[in-house]
């Protein structure tokens, strides 16, 4: 591991997040036994229900004790565990280079990706990576090998943000490529056309993927604490403006909040996990909080 890509996963962070686990909200289709619930009934210790025998059922699953009491054939059904195939979709557009604090959004997003990869690989899940701006910039296929982490880190480090963001194409690509149901984690600032994002998300959900949006925002973008006359030069060729930021702050915050609100509402409607993360927050704390409090994780998933 070269120092270059090591910067996204520092040992102290690793030690702090190592006890976390990434759990799929929805049923995912893996090829190994793992932490995640599989759509299939299989061999496991977790009994689910009895069902009357119908022709074609496996005779080995008939519960003979029930037969002895009722003279009817019932079969026992058990939960099957599976492993998870996760695709990390990381935004590498120019706007991600913005950062007023210690880290840019790009660095922070990559760190999240690295941390998640580490966690998933640790729990034997497969992790893949798609880095994108206007187009897909890099792709790492999903593997569950431990040393697959390096491949992901290397891919992140190699990519320098430059161009604009376009989400729909990227998400459609991810949807088509991932035939099996798995988890898609999008790490971006989402400064793009929201409609294209929503269309992409809809597609992913349609394919049965468990989608998670990690919205990385800088403090200044959320709080807009600028003062004094300032010339703002827009990234991604979005124009420039000389103004007294204090006088525009309220309007700006209003616009940002309505943007975030729209995003949040859409995600909630489509059962997409959404989380805004400030680059100033400690990654481990943010991640721990997020992973432990994902909405709906406590409910049963089988209908």
């Amino acid at each position, binding site marked *: 591991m070269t120092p270059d890509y090591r910067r996204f996963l520092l040992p102290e962070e690793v030690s702090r997040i190592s006890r976390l686990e990434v759990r799929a909200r929805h049923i995912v289709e893996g090829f190994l036994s793992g932490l995640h619930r599989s759509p299939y009934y299989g061999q496991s210790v977790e009994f689910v229900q009895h069902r009357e025998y119908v022709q074609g059922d496996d005779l080995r699953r008939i519960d003979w004790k029930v037969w002895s009491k009722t003279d009817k054939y019932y079969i026992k059904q058990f939960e099957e565990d599976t492993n998870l195939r996760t695709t990390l979709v990381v935004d590498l557009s120019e*706007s*991600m*280079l*913005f950062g007023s604090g210690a880290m840019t*959004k790009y660095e922070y997003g990559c760190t999240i990706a690295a941390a998640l990869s580490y966690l998933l690989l640790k729990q034997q899940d497969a992790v893949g990576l798609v880095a994108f701006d206007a187009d897909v910039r890099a792709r790492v296929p999903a593997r569950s090998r431990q040393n697959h982490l390096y491949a992901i880190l290397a891919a992140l480090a190699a990519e320098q943000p430059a161009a604009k963001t376009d989400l729909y194409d990227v998400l459609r690509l991810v949807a088509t490529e991932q035939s099996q149901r798995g988890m898609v984690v999008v790490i971006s*600032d989402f*400064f793009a056309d929201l409609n294209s994002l929503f269309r992409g998300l809809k597609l992913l959900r349609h394919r049965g993927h468990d989608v998670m949006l990690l919205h990385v925002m*800088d403090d*200044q*973008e*959320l709080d*807009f*604490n*600028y*003062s*004094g*006359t*300032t*010339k*703002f*030069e*827009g*990234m*991604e060729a*979005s*124009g*420039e*403006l*000389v*103004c*007294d*930021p*204090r*006088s*525009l*702050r*309220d*309007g*700006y915050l*209003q*616009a*940002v909040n309505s*943007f975030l609100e729209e995003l949040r509402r859409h995600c909630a409607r489509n059962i997409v996990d959404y989380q*805004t993360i*400030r680059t100033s*927050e400690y990654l481990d704390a*943010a991640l721990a*909080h997020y992973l432990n409090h994902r909405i709906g994780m406590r409910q049963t998933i089988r209908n």
Partner: protein
Amino acid sequence: MTWFLQAYQSLTSLIAGHFFNPAFVLPGAALIASPIVIHLINRLRYRRVRFAAMEFLLKSQRRNRRRVMMEQLLLLLLRILIVLLLLALIARLILDPNQLSIFRGAAKAHHLVLLDDSGSMQNRWGETSAFNEAIAVVKQFAAEGSRRPDTQKFTLLLLSDPDQPVFVERDVNEEFVAELETKLENLRRRCTHRALDLIAGLEAAERIFAEQRATIRHLHVISDYRKIDWQNQGALGSLVRRLDAAGVAVNLVKTVPHRDENVAISDLSGDLQVSAAGVPLRLKIAVKNLGEQVARDVRISIVQDGQKLPLAIHFDKIEGGTEVTREFDVTFDSPKKHKLEAALEADSLETDNRRFLAIDIAETNPVLIVDGDPSGDEASYIADALSAAPGLTGITPSIETPDYLRRHPLDRFQCIYMVNVPELPEDSIELLSDYVEAGGGLAWFAGDAVNTSFYNEKLYREGTGLFPVPLSAAKRQLPPADETTPGPDLNFASHPIFRIFEGEENSFVKIVKVGTYLPVMENWVRDDNRRADRVATIAVMRNKDPLMFEHRYGKGRVFTSLTSAGPMWTSWPRNRSYPIVQLELQKFLARNDRALDLRVVGEPIDLSLDPTVYTEAVEIASPEEANQGLTRLKAAPAPERAPEGEAAGADAAKKADKRPGGAETVAPYRAVFRETDRPGVYTIKLLDKDQITHEQWVAYNVPIKESELALATTAELRRQIGEDVNVQIQEPGDPAWIQGKEAGQEVRERLLILLMLILFAEQMLAYRLSYHPKTAGAAAKTAGAAA
């Protein structure tokens, strides 16, 4: 270019008229640019930030552009306003140019100072006095004026002589101030003792101002503003209003901060006309406490001709605002002029602590009794009553026949008694009339011999003569007392002559018996009020017939009794109340035209000399130590027509012409001496043709009015003048008005309040327009909530 200069000049004069410190105004106005410049600099200096969320920023900018601009403009405006207000405060904006310091007006101004030097200004307290304070104010005033030399004109009037200004329209500069100070130092000792009329002073000021309508005119009245001068003085108020209406800025300057206690001798008098050598003279002294508190242990010493008399007049206490009187006897041994002085202990107003009296003590007081019936002894009863023993009363009565009247001069008699005189020849009546007109006293007593028709015709003369009433033809007997007409024979009115009969149940009244009298004509109206002539009925019989009368004739007094002087018709002369009444009657009648003058300081001594008797040389000695106060005057022939105020002098001249011996009509010489400001006795020495010196003494005293030290409050002054009249009233000991420190006080306060409000508004707006990070705790909480 010319119009620009004109505009600039009018602008500077406008600024000078409305600002105390006009020099600050124009540079200050340039400071208005500072908020704008700061604003522009802030727009030019900016930092660059590469920003990702431009979309939102641009959206905000699109939405808020108009509002932001308005807010910025408002803020800029407020900041400019703050600069303007600060400028107005520093340059001291004054809305009313009249309020501006009297010396800072734009144009040349004329200041007329009217300095009150009346007696009450001598009020002392601590190390200073009202007059000293006033002089200090004038000095300070001139000194302040000289800081802008030759821009102001100054006139100083003294209230004691408003027609003779001390300075007239002098340019105020260093040289003048030095001259003024010298003059004021001299004036310091020259505060008068007189009661002066502010109205005269104001009118003089008005006359001076009337001649110069163009300039800015200020009138400063520096006075002590006593209540007595300002109470119900409608004329004073209207005069001030008139001055104000004429465009004169009236400024009333008070010099006395508080009212002092004051005790004054308000009167020292007596029946001086009956004084005679060796006979005790009863004098009356009145002491008035003009303060508010009780004056305790007031002692008065009496000094006669420079010698303190062993008399102790002592009042334990005198309530505030009250007057107490005390009578005491003084005996003068020698028949000459005497000076008497009563003195109090020192208090805040020195001048009224002494009172003077000049008395010409006669050897005796001759009285003429004309007895119409040589065989009778009626007259001797009067003579005995007036002078029981020689030297006892100082009266020398002489009993003569009616013929005496035409043969001897009557002037030397103090009064003449006409006892039972049947008739008088024409010339005697005329001489008698002249005598009474000139001030002599006359008493009529009836008797058997009286020819009533003669009295009615020649003496009564339809109410114009020497006799007061018309008489009936025959005498009448008083019927004895019975149930229908009870009571004593006589009822006396309250009159000085009958002082002895005053009071209820007076035993003296009962024993006075009157048997016979001459009744007045039936058609003569008895009621004094209805008749309303000069005659007063002072004693009435039991049957309501009037018996005794008193009336004035010329300067003299006439007493009439319709009963006899002796026991012919009445038992009274044998009664012990008779001599007392006769002595009182003599006091009442005694001619007082020769009593020495009692005058109030300031009245001029106006001498009218008969050039056939006196030389022109007149010497007047003022009541000052040594011979410093000696003034020599030279009498000069009087002008053809004597001015109105000096009619008395003219009268005297007429008299002199008429005198026997003064046959040739020579105009009298006049000498007027006006320096009679000091209280005391003035000695006038006249030299006659035989080089014999004649002395006249005149006592001058301070007017009691000036002893009233109660002060008029500012509110009272305003009420007198009128609330709506623009008059400045300056409180004592506060010279701020001279420097104009007080000017624009209300404006300044309002400006300060406005400035505070605007500063507050600016802060509020600036706070609203700017971003303020929340406190650490609150920020953490918000972050937590967001997460």
